[in-house]
């Protein structure tokens, strides 16, 4: 069974990984993405994640459908955390179950790359001397700014 969720609660990585396991599969690859303390040399105190929730869920569902058409995989689970996260806390978990591990590794890498380009979630980095909303550097969709 596939699933895709947003939550403000801490994510239990093991339970995400086990939920995708069907009997015909032989491997699950799970990404545990968590909050990094230093980005480009600057020390982060904590992060705040915000989402356009209904659109984020739709985009996560589309990614799973696309991944299934691209890779020989069975089930996918994606859980993204929202709200305030401390250093080292898990922000996103992606688990991919497949009959064979190669497809699971490839699909998991593809899914996190595309999630970071398409799913409307934003992170704010909070420092001791300020805060900034991070803007993605490789959006899949872009709109020319108006000249009006």
């Amino acid at each position, binding site marked *: 069974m596939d699933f895709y969720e947003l939550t403000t609660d801490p994510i239990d990585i093991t339970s995400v990984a086990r939920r995708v396991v069907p009997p015909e599969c032989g491997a699950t690859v799970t990404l545990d*993405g968590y909050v990094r303390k230093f980005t480009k040399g600057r020390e982060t105190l904590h992060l705040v*994640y*915000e*989402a*356009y929730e*209904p*659109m*984020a869920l*739709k985009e996560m569902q589309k990614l799973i459908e696309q991944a299934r058409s691209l890779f020989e995989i069975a089930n996918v689970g994606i859980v*993204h955390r929202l709200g305030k996260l401390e250093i080292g806390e898990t*922000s*996103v978990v992606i688990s991919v179950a497949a009959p064979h591990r190669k497809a699971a590794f490839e699909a998991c890498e593809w899914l*996190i790359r595309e*999630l*970071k*380009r*398409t*799913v*409307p*979630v*934003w*992170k*704010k980095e909070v420092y001791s001397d300020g805060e900034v*909303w*991070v*803007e*993605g*550097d*490789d*959006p*899949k*969709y*872009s*709109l*020319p*700014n*108006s000249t*009006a």
Partner: protein
Amino acid sequence: MSVRILFFGATADVVGAQEIQLSPTGGETSGDVFDAVLRDHPGLRNHKLLFSVNQEFASRSEPVRDGDELAIFTAVSGG
């Protein structure tokens, strides 16, 4: 007619609201509404902006209908 325009993260900070309502006179495209918001909130021009209509990424040429939910936000940064 009336449309809602949602903002998130950096764009909500610039606009000072998470949502505004506009009343286009009719016949506008998503790009027309987008331009109107940028005229009212020129600080948005400092960002690379994305745009959605009814929770789907949109171009500037989508027709806008009464009750539509538009959103303007910066390049996503989840994960």
